[in-house]
């Protein structure tokens, strides 16, 4: 999906809980906070963490210069399951 949008001429970035998977799928740009599959943008109701992840993702969208780059983000949320 990311590739289809990128191919149409819109730059994209994906928040990835599974960085090796997006790498193999051919992502142009990705960020990887330490998050579970069910909460990529941060813990539920944690406005501060969610805002930081969204802001950092958009900043990396501009900063990344090489296709296939995955930038780790310094946020961690471990879901209680």
């Amino acid at each position, binding site marked *: *999906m*990311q*590739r*289809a*949008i*990128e*191919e*149409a*001429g*819109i*730059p*994209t*970035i*994906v*928040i*990835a*809980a*599974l*960085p090796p*998977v*997006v*790498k*193999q*799928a*051919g*992502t*142009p740009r*990705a960020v990887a906070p330490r998050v*579970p*599959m*069910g*909460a*990529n*943008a*941060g*813990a*539920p*109701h944690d*406005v501060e963490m*969610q*805002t930081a*992840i*969204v*802001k950092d*993702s*958009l*900043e990396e*969208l*501009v900063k990344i210069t090489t*296709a*296939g780059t995955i930038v780790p983000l310094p946020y961690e949320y471990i*879901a209680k*399951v």
Partner: protein
Amino acid sequence: MDLTVVKGLQSEIFVPITPPLVWTPVTKEIKDMKIALATAAGVHLKSDKRFNLAGDFTFRTIPGDAPSNELMVSHGGYDNGDVNKDVNCMFPIDRLRELAAAGFIKEVAPVHVGFMGGGGNQEKFKNETGPAIAKILKEEGVDAVLLTAG
């Protein structure tokens, strides 16, 4: 020495091959961008049709002004516990609105997209659903897309 015992034997396991690079350069500053969200997490309006949890290559558009409490998730491939408490976990639309209000981005796109990743007909996703979603976002003049569920 030829170690091949059976000619033409193939693995039963799907081995994905990383496709060629795709790249669109960023030409604007973040503060000048209209941003859309696209998620494979199965997000859609509560009033919209749910996804088929066994596999579904269709997608749902989500209006940019849809209140987050009118959104829900139908997805059979991950723990929905967190996203049911707060849809922003996978679809940070409220955070995006706050960033637009603060001037960090120019505006929230008038349309966003939810679909159900993690399975389904991959050929349909690649050749039909993906291009269809890209076309909608292009027509709305979206400058960049933030995806989740990677």
